[in-house]
């Protein structure tokens, strides 16, 4: 009923929607995470995503399984891309369907928040000035100080 995977190819969000669509579904929620053109005021060219593949897939599967327990009846398709992405490209897509909207919305939020918290994926941002850095979300508040 639910799937989670990594891909090196561009994400086709329509196919994720198709995976979770069914006649008994009254709500489908699609979340797309996309590469933003700046971070903390620095213009961004693109991002290299890398993962501990085996664990990332296992952890993503655990998350969609947990979401299925918390929000009974939800169907989820989760896909995260790795490799070099340009501004505007989709890095992660989550489609959740349920007979009713509340569970579909909440399940989608649960999956993206848990993914960001615990799935072993890293990103190296490439800036317009030619430099690049690994992104450390834990360090961000201090660095973001003006």
């Amino acid at each position, binding site marked *: 009923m639910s799937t989670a995977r990594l891909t090196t190819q561009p994400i086709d969000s329509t196919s994720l929607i198709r995976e979770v669509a069914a006649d008994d579904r009254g709500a489908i929620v699609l979340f797309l995470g996309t590469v933003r053109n700046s971070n903390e005021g620095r213009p961004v060219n693109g991002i290299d995503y890398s993962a501990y593949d085996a664990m990332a897939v296992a952890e993503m599967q655990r998350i969609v399984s947990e979401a299925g327990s918390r929000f009974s009846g939800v169907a989820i398709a989760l896909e995260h891309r790795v490799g070099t992405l340009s501004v505007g490209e989709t890095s992660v897509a989550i489609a959740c369907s349920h007979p009713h909207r509340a569970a579909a919305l909440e399940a989608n939020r649960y999956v993206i928040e848990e993914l960001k918290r615990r799935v072993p994926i890293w990103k190296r941002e490439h800036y317009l000035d030619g430099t690049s850095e*690994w992104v450390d979300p834990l360090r961000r508040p201090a660095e973001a100080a003006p």
Partner: protein
Amino acid sequence: MTVRVLLFASYADAVGQNELTLELDDGSVVGDVVSRVREMAGGRALPPAPLLALNAAYSTSAAVVRAGDEVAIIPPVAGG
């Protein structure tokens, strides 16, 4: 016994390797792997208590490792 150690992202850059093998005494724990890697050139860039995984699942530093296990030292994750 031999265990496989995986490093990623900034930790792999710091040590200059993304995969290595370590010889450990029987009864060693995951935390011992961190200590050994921190003794290597560049290893001080790793925090003393990083996130850890044993055989592709999060683990504590007290988990006992066995021959052939795969220990991963996990930098702050940044997916999404």
